[in-house]
């Protein structure tokens, strides 16, 4: 358990980036009802549950074309 507390401070920036991405993605999902595929619930779960890659997958593949 000791090692976990030793390395945790180094991961804080990664966590911050992940939170920023997730917040941006959730905001975008809630404001835009149309997606290339899938629906709102699926994307919200993906974005929040899959760390870092979830929001990236949403912005690259899931985001609807028409703003």
């Amino acid at each position, binding site marked *: 358990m000791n090692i976990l507390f030793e390395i945790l401070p*180094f*991961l804080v920036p990664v966590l911050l980036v992940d939170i920023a991405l997730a917040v941006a993605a959730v905001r975008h999902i809630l404001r835009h009802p149309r997606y290339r595929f899938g629906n709102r619930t699926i994307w919200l779960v993906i974005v929040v549950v899959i760390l870092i890659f979830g929001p990236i997958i949403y912005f690259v593949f899931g985001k609807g074309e028409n703003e």
Partner: protein
Amino acid sequence: MSGYIAFVKKEFTENMKNYRFLILFAVFLIFGIMSAFLAKFTPEILSALAADMEMTSEPVALDAWKQFYKNISGVGFSAFIILFGSCLSNEYSKGTLVLMVTKGLSRKAVILAKYTVAVALMTISYWISYAATYGYTALLWNDTSLAHVVFAAVSLWIVGFLYLSILMIGCVIFKQTFTSILFTGGIVALISLLGMIEPIAKFSPFILTSKNVDLISGKVIPAEFVIPAFVSFILSIFGLLIAIRLFNKKQL
């Protein structure tokens, strides 16, 4: 010239609005941090999970840079090319360029502005990633024996210009995002194949992506990088000129 500046502004806004910049920033920053982090702690994490595993050697600062160059030259640049592969195909399919070009925006300005913005974003995210790795490496190891750290990073950065210039040609030739990405991948693969042929290997830009770690560890000298960097620079300009020429003849 004013058309160019206006188009650069438009491109910047577009890249901010469609989250490309945010994604690249996040990916590169995380790669930068993780390169140093994983190099340092993977052995410890493994031995904490499996107590009977013997670690053969203590990780050193060079391992962090090995990870950095592997990640950035592979996944980092791929992410870049995939995200920017749609930079012209979207405009073709929506027909948004026709209006601007017929209203007097020069075609040269379109290509140059797109390239400028791509290069600017690449530069920002690349050096952020570098700074993250550098900071974490300095924090985790008190090792100052490594030489030419900055020079090695600059050489990979120069290759970034070349890749983007090839991508511009691909985007101009093909109407679909996927084919332009495929084109870029093919040319990059060709460059690395040519880099293996003995007589021209010394001049190939491939050295710039493959020998960075050797440069830091002192196995090769910086002088070997000068000609490939120059070749890469010339090829980038050449590629951009080809892209402009092709775009001038392209039907929008």
